[in-house]
C-alpha cells in the first residue's frame, strides 16, 4: 500500500505541469471537460489517500486499536505508516476540508448575487448596456443569464466586432462555463497542487467561447482582432511606455514566427487566445486525450487499491472481527 498511497499525491504534481500545454493543444471544449474532470478526480484521489494515511496511522494508536481489537504486530508488519505521517496527513486533510468549505461559501455567495442581480435587469433582450467610460464586457450567470457591455465599448466596436463579442459571451452563458470553473476551483481548494489545472480551465472556457464566436461569425481573424482591440482599449495607456511600444512593435513584427510562437506560449491569456484564433481551428486529439484519461484512471485505481489494501489489513488485524 505504501507506494500506491503516495501515487495519488504524485500524479497531481505531474498534472499541474501538464495542464497548460494540454490547454493549448486540445480542442477547447474537450480540454475543458478533461481538465475539470481531472481536477475533481485527482482531488478526490489525494483526499482518499490522505484519509487512508490517517486511518492506518490511527489504527496503530493503542487506545483506538484496542477499541477495535486490532492486532498490533499484524498492523506493524503490514503497514509502516508512522504516527508522524498520520498526524501530518490529518493536519493537511483538515486544512483541505476547511479550504473547500470556504471556497464553496464564497462561490455560492457570488453566484447567488449574480442570479439576484441578473433577475433585476430588464427582460427585453439579454444585453444590458452600462453607461460610463469603462471598457467592460462580461456574461452574468442567472436565469436567464445576461450579457453586460459598457456603452463606450459598444461604440468603439463596429457591427462585426459587436457580433463577435456577443457571440463569445453568449457561448459562456449557453455552455454554463461558470460551473466548470467553479467545480475546478472547488476541487483545487482540496489540493492546491491542482491550482494550475483550475487556471487552465479558466483559459479553456475562454477558448471555447472564442471558437464558438469564430463559428458563428465565420471569421476567425475577426474574433482575434476584436479580442486584441478590446484588450488594448481596456489597458490604460502609460504615455512613455506607449512610445517605446511603437518601436518594439515594429521590431517584433520582424521577429521570426518561431520565436514568437515560443514567447506566446509563455504570455498571458489574451495573446494566446489571439494566436490560437489566427491558427487553423483545433481538432480532436484522440491520442493525447486517451493518454490523459489513462493517467487519471491509474490515479483513481491506485487510490481504490490502497483503500482496499488498508481494509484488508484491518480485517486481518481484527481477526474474525
Amino acid at each position, binding site marked *: 500500500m505504501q507506494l500506491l498511497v503516495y501515487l495519488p499525491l504524485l500524479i497531481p504534481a505531474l498534472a499541474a505541469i501538464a495542464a497548460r500545454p494540454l490547454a493549448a493543444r486540445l480542442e477547447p471544449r474537450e480540454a475543458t471537460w478533461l481538465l475539470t474532470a481531472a481536477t475533481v478526480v485527482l482531488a478526490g484521489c489525494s483526499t482518499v489517500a490522505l484519509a487512508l494515511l490517517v486511518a492506518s496511522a490511527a489504527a496503530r494508536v493503542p487506545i483506538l486499536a484496542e477499541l477495535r481489537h486490532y492486532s498490533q504486530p499484524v498492523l506493524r508488519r503490514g503497514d509502516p505508516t508512522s504516527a508522524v505521517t498520520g498526524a501530518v496527513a490529518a493536519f493537511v486533510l483538515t486544512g483541505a476540508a476547511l479550504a473547500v468549505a470556504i471556497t464553496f461559501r*464564497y*462561490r455560492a*455567495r*457570488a453566484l447567488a*448575487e*449574480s442570479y439576484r*442581480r441578473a433577475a*433585476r*435587469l*430588464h427582460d427585453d433582450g439579454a444585453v*444590458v448596456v*452600462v*453607461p*460610463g*467610460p469603462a471598457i*467592460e*464586457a*462580461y*456574461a*452574468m*450567470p442567472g436565469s436567464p443569464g*445576461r450579457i*453586460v457591455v459598457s456603452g463606450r465599448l459598444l461604440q468603439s466596436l*463596429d457591427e462585426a*466586432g459587436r457580433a463577435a*463579442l456577443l457571440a463569445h*459571451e453568449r457561448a*459562456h452563458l449557453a455552455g454554463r*462555463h*461558470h460551473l466548470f470553473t*467553479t467545480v475546478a476551483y472547488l476541487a483545487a481548494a482540496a489540493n492546491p497542487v491542482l491550482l494550475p489545472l483550475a487556471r487552465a480551465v*479558466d483559459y479553456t*472556457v*475562454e477558448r471555447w*467561447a472564442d471558437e464558438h464566436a469564430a463559428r458563428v461569425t465565420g471569421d476567425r*481573424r*475577426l474574433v482575434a*482582432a*476584436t*479580442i*486584441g482591440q478590446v*484588450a*488594448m482599449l*481596456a*489597458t490604460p495607456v502609460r504615455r512613455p511606455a506607449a512610445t517605446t*511600444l511603437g518601436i*518594439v*512593435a515594429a521590431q*517584433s*513584427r520582424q521577429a521570426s514566427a518561431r520565436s*514568437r510562437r515560443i*514567447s*506566446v506560449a509563455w*504570455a*498571458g491569456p*489574451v*495573446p494566446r487566445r*489571439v*494566436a490560437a484564433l*489566427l491558427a487553423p481551428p483545433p481538432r480532436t486529439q484522440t491520442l493525447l486525450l486517451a493518454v490523459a484519461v489513462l493517467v487519471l484512471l491509474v490515479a483513481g485505481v491506485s487510490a481504490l487499491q490502497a483503500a482496499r489494501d488498508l481494509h484488508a489489513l484491518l480485517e486481518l488485524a481484527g481477526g474474525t472481527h
Partner: protein
Amino acid sequence: MHDDGPQPALGDSLGASRRPAGALEAEVLAVLRAAGTPLSPGQVRERLAARGEGELSYSTVVTIVSRLHAKGLLARERAGRGFAYTPLDAASLAAGQMSRALDTGADHRAVLSRFVSGLSGRDARLLRGLLGDDGQEQDGG
C-alpha cells in the same frame, strides 16, 4: 429625445425657495432623464430655470450632481474641464453595482466571464506583433 410626461409634477408646486435636499435631487434627476444626453452642471442649471424651478446657484447644482454620482445614481464622463452627467436606469444600476463588485472581489470575477482583462506591456507588444502581421489591423479605434 422626448420629454416624458410625469416628471415636472415634482417641482412646479414646490417653488424655488426652500426645498428639502431630496426634492432638489429628484428635480435634477428628472431634468437629466428628460435630456437624453449627458449634461454638464451648467446645462442642468439652465434647464432647471427653464422649467420654472427658479434659479439655483451653479455650486448648488454641482453639489447635487456630485452627491447623486456618489450615490451611484448618475454616471459621469469628462467633458472639457468638468464632467457631463447621465442618469442610470434600474438595469444599469444593477449592472453598475455588479461592475463595482467585479473590481473588488476575486470570486465575483470568477463567476462573471469577462471578455478580456488588461494586458501587461509584454502581452501588448506580442499582441501587436500577432495582429500586425498581414497589413494594418482591421480595427478603426
